[in-house]
């Protein structure tokens, strides 16, 4: 409390008008951010630069970065991660766009039910959900039971299983931002478009998608980044062909105890994620509509 008062008093001469109140309100979240987010980040940063982490007396080096970046295995894993993540993202968008459209413009009284279903589906424990996919995709699972012929072994412990499971896990976070963006679209725009001769394809491409674009970009930020660092899904339903970056970092640090390489790899991914977010954010803003 004393610290809080001190902060306000020091800031007071510079703060104008409501600035004083804003500082007081922001104190708690800023503190949390520093303690829980920035501090671990600094620790990880120093780990990636220490010659023999966590020995702080061992001196600093960029060796871990050059090692990580020149190791072909890491590039292969990066490629696997990107194509699995992107395929899952494309599948999710293919589901989320029509679903959000249906919820906003067609569902009527079912809108709330669908929204709640999406939220509740996300509330389930993730590990339970992922194990459920083992039951669905397994050798004696539901899908193999439905499809005639010999059991398909590529359904489980494969990139396919990881993609399907990731898509199912993150569908809520893809749909809700797109739903919110579409909610702001005036339905009379579609009637105008129909009146001017537009079919469903022109309506989607020239009106629905451009106006829902901010939601699409936000969904991509929200989903892509956690998906690329996810290791639980690949652990449970993945196989040797779906070894992903999240698992790699985890195995480097917890498996081999190689804190230097793990931290360096993690920081590189962080920088890429931030760059990706900024790009998506910029695109979303470009499409922001003034009305």
């Amino acid at each position, binding site marked *: 409390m004393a610290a809080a008062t001190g902060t306000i008093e020091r800031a007071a001469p510079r703060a104008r008008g409501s600035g004083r109140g804003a500082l007081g309100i922001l104190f708690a979240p800023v503190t949390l951010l520093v303690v829980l987010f920035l501090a671990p980040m600094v620790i990880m940063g120093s780990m990636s630069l220490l010659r023999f982490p966590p020995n702080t007396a061992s001196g600093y080096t960029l060796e871990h970065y050059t090692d990580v970046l020149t190791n072909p295995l890491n590039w292969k894993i990066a490629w696997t991660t990107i194509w699995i993540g992107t395929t899952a993202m494309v599948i999710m968008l293919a589901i989320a766009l029509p679903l959000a459209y249906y919820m906003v413009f067609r569902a009527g009284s079912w809108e709330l039910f669908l929204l709640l279903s999406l939220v509740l589906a996300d509330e389930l424990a993730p590990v339970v959900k992922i194990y459920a996919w083992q039951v669905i995709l397994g050798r004696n699972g539901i899908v193999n039971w439905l499809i005639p012929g010999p059991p398909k072994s590529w359904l489980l412990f494969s990139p396919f299983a990881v993609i399907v499971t990731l898509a199912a896990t993150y569908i809520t976070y893809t749909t809700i931002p797109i739903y919110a963006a579409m909610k702001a679209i005036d339905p*009379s725009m579609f009637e*105008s*478009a129909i*009146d*001017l001769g537009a079919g469903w394809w022109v309506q989607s491409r020239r009106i629905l998608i451009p*106006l829902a674009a901010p939601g699409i970009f936000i969904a991509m930020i929200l989903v892509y980044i956690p998906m690329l660092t996810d290791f639980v899904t690949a652990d449970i339903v993945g196989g040797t062909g779906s070894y992903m970056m999240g698992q790699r970092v985890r195995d480097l640090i917890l498996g081999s105890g190689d804190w230097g390489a793990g931290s360096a790899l993690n920081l590189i991914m962080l920088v890429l994620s931030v760059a990706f977010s900024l790009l998506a954010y910029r695109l979303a803003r470009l499409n922001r*509509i003034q009305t």
Partner: protein
Amino acid sequence: MTMNGSTSQAPTSAEVASMPSPDARAGEIVVEGVTKRFSEVTAVDDVSITIPGGEFFSMLGPSGCGKTTTLRMIAGFETPDVGRIVLQGTDVTAVPPAKRNVNMVFQAYGLFPHMSVSENIAFGPKIKRLGREETRQRVSEVIATVRLEGFEDRRPGQLSGGQQQRVALARALVNRPAALLLDEPLGALDLKLRKEMQLELKDLQQRTGTTFVYVTHDQEEAMTMSDRIAVMHDGVVEQLASPRELYQRPASAFVAGFIGTSNLIELRVDRREGGLIAMDLGEGQRILAVDPGLGGTDPITITVRPEWIKLASGDVDGRASHVGGTVVDAVYLGSVTQLIVLLHTGERLTVHRLNDEVGAEEPRPGAHVTLHWAAEHSYVVGSSVDRTDPRTTGEPTEETAARTGR
């Protein structure tokens, strides 16, 4: 801008067969015995309207009267349960909106916020693949028509309400529709702008020669712009006539009440003489009307416009209604003062007294006044709808006639 109507699309052989001469029916819309139900509610009940090409036609009525549903059936957004929509001699009842040569202007405009003014306007021509040069030429032509030069690159969000309205008009007109359908397009504007836009719309309609079908609940708006008006109520056309006719010769009590201010009086037929019917109120007071020749002694509904009622200063003509009453309210409205006069029979009459004399003495509440008006100004509701007018296919049905007698 020329109206190309039925010549704009290559007609099929069936269409050619049904079109005696291509231009005779340009812009003509026929609504033929159309009924539309939404579950239990009959929104439009056996409506027939013929709108000749180049007319400014309005559908007027309170909300829920079926006017917007009728318009949406002409546009193709709703399909009639019974009846046909015939556009320029071709039955389009089953044709989707995109394939009908009409365009609609929506109350909310439905402008595309992520496109510039010219992109919005070019939307239709691009879908119709008119070609770059043709599209560019049409867009700049129509921008000049609605006076939006200099705003081509703005987004709708950067325009005022009136300018957005004009973009919506231009976006529809650029397709050179046979008819333009307007659904309360001025509803979102403030009063002053609305009045300006009314004149502008009328002017635009005359310059382009396009058929305008206009839906509104504002009787003044309809009166200002329209060649003819269909007054709708409970899904039926109560009366279809020119603004003057609607005001002077309302076909039903509903029309009399909806168009302007009106005094509706239930006239008991006490005696008939000299082609007049009279209701005696005692003390020499009476209300007269021209005998509609229906015979019988059933009460007749008459309507008297407030401005036709005069305050008597001397003797009253023998052919004039003559009643006394007490002023209960006097409201100064500028050009007129509105008096509410309570008769000793308990009826209230609204009287408009023209303020055309500086310093003239005004009756105050409590004052006793004598009112008179010519028998010809007691209009017997529904007595003289011209059933021979070939354009008036929206004549009163049996149902509205029954309503009139109420």
